[in-house]
């Protein structure tokens, strides 16, 4: 049930082994990468199982779209190589469980999926979001985060119901088949992960960036260029959907900010460190955070833009202490419209 669409033959024939060679957290030359790749294919023990920080980047690096990361997570779970201490994993599984409190609701297009971030509903206001219906809660939580916990079983168990909930309780009678995903994780889940696991998605996911780009185009006469130098913190889940990256540049152009040239951006982006802290790799997380902030500062950024709420909550305080303003992408757009934006720091 929900077999991963992964082709061993494609992997075995791959000469570049970019999934492992390009990893910035493990050092593997091509020969040893090939060896470890075979171990993973055969379901044998591999250092990769233990050393992987679960940053998703190998999904982007794979030139064949063969889902090496999903395989790795399956192998971690099969071999019980838990990246996160077991009590924390079990606790998170309970914390994020569907509460069964969902009920049919009349929504109308555009429908915005806030995943399990009710605390961010304050962001959804102003001219950008006029007429938008929001949906949020544990029963529509996309569950992709279990990739960080070697718990593909939780994804297989919960995701089909989540997809069904979104469709049955909200979209089916709404007259729209589109749902805007506030979070990269949701968009990645419904466009990439679900198909990879053979889970049907009856609605059309729209990335928040696309929605924002189109709204800013509509409201272009009201936009006041912000004239700031910004660093962008690319989230791990965007590795699943790198094709959405061009919208970041478009949005920045439309709101009149300059994306600083820096080392740890785009394909070279660094993890926010949240998952590393859960994996108890605190010193590595601190080290990566410092590199990232040093890089932002050296490039002259005065603002750090997030799209992932988890990155925002993980890094926000440190960013602010460094003298940069942490801000969510949607709030940045609202600021360009001259609106006061929501924020926690």
């Amino acid at each position, binding site marked *: 049930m929900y077999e991963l669409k992964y082709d061993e033959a494609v992997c075995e024939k791959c000469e570049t082994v970019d999934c492992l060679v390009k990893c910035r957290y493990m050092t593997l030359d091509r020969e040893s990468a090939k060896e470890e790749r075979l171990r993973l294919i055969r379901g044998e023990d591999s250092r990769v199982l233990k050393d992987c920080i679960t940053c998703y980047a190998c999904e982007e690096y794979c030139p064949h779209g063969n889902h090496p990361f999903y395989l790795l997570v399956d192998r971690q779970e099969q071999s019980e190589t838990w990246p996160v*201490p077991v*009590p*924390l994993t079990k*606790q998170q599984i*309970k914390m994020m469980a569907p509460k069964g409190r969902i009920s049919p609701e009349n929504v109308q297009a555009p429908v915005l999926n806030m995943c399990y971030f009710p605390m961010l509903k304050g962001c959804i206001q102003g001219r950008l979001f006029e007429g938008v219906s929001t949906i949020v809660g544990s029963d529509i939580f996309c569950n992709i985060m279990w990739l960080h916990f070697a718990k593909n079983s939780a994804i297989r168990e919960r995701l089909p119901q989540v997809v069904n909930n979104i469709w049955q309780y909200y979209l089916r009678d709404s007259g729209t088949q589109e749902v805007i995903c506030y979070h990269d994780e949701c968009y990645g889940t419904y466009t990439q992960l679900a198909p990879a696991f053979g889970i049907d998605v009856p609605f059309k996911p729209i990335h928040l960036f696309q929605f924002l780009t189109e709204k800013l185009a509509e409201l272009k006469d009201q936009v006041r260029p912000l004239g700031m130098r910004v660093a962008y913190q690319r989230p791990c889940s965007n590795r699943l959907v790198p094709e959405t990256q061009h919208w970041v540049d478009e949005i920045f152009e439309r709101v009149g900010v300059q994306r600083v040239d820096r080392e740890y951006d785009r394909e070279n982006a660094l993890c926010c460190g949240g998952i590393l802290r859960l994996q108890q790799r605190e010193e590595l997380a601190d080290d990566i955070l410092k590199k990232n902030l040093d890089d932002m500062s050296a490039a002259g950024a005065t603002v750090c833009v997030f799209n992932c709420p988890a990155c925002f909550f993980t890094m926000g305080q440190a960013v602010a202490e460094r003298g940069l303003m942490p801000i969510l992408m949607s709030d940045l757009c609202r600021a360009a419209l001259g609106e006061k934006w929501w924020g926690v720091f």
Partner: protein
Amino acid sequence: MNETYSELAGIVGERYVSNEPEEKFIYSRDQGTMEPCDPDFVVMPDSTEEVRQIVLLANRKGIPIVPMGGGLVLSGLSRPLKGGVVLDMKRMNRILQVNETSRYAIVEAGASQGMLQAYLKKHHPSLKHSVPDAPPIATVGGNVLIHGSGHLSHAAGFHSEMLNGMEAVLPTGEVVRLGSCATSPYWFSRAPLPDLAGLFLGWTGTTGVVTKLAIRLYPNRPFNDVGVFVVEDPEIVPDILHRVTGVGLAEDISAWMTPKPDWAEGFIHINVNYSADSKDELGWKKNLIRAPLRKYMDEKTGGFMMLPLPMKKPFLEAPASQLTRFADVRKGGGFEYVGAIMPIELFPEAHQMGLDIAERCGTTYSTGARIIGMGHCMMFFFAYPFNRADPSDVKRAGTALEQTNRGALDMGGIPWKAEAPAQKQILQRMDENTRELMSRVRRMLDPKGIMNPGNWEVD
């Protein structure tokens, strides 16, 4: 009775004495399960001299006196078991002195935790005292005298160990000073004199009325953080506590176990609070505290929660407001609480006992432990909220309380701030000569037996 009323009014003023039914009702009980006992009078003195005169009056007439601080002890220790006068100390709430250099404060016995906390924040922001997880109206003095503990107890022990000295009115009316203040104008410590403060610590008001105390203060550092270590297996908790206390950097270490919220059920959470003068120092301390727990992180049997700032805030509060909310989870204003002082190796046994008793008695529970000193012992708490308006709920909580006291004693612990029935259980198991010594001390100090009778009675 009218004559006594008049004499009391003559001492404290008409406004501060009452024998009206509404006052008698309120002062007859606390939030716990113990049966109410009506006082004959409630009196609120304003000075040591007034306390002295009340004690002399009570002595002359053989009227019981029950000193009371915030009245939040939950085990009914300020109920007047044999009637008499409840001496409510809340008017004596002055903060008399703060010695910033030697870090201590002299307060009257009715000064509340909230008042001292606010006073220090305003006038001496570089200092703090150890705050118990009690409502802010709980008194500093009351908590010291019951061997309370709080947010600096890992660093500095029981609150009674943070006591530098005191002023007390003996049951026969003499005013004494104990500690350095007996000989010096400074209240800097109980050493090096013969330590007589113990005559009033843990005696629950049966040996006299404490009117002033000096307590130690500690640096209030600007950078604060908390790590919450989570495990499933209670058997590994003593070793974890031993390791993390051995580092000696935490201010407070406490464990908590609760079935609500759902995600907390089945796990043991160990909060480790620490502070620093700089961000760098905070980081070093974090790494040093984590280091001895690496074994469990590598084995994947335990780990620190990832706490973004909004989730962290409640764990940095002193007192913890979440506990207050839990206390009324059943509504109806009932909350029973057994703290038992025991060595940390008894953690698994105590944890299991709490679960068993809650299940057997059909009560909601919350258990946990605050580590005292560098892991020398812990105050393991078993909390059972109940609805006072539901007699069956009260009975369930009362049964749970009784079973918990017995279980704690059976495993080698000692119930803390024990209510009268639990005091009897403790005395039954106490060394015979110690028991006799307690009796002799009490007879010597209080020949007429007027001080909080019905508590710690050996005979």
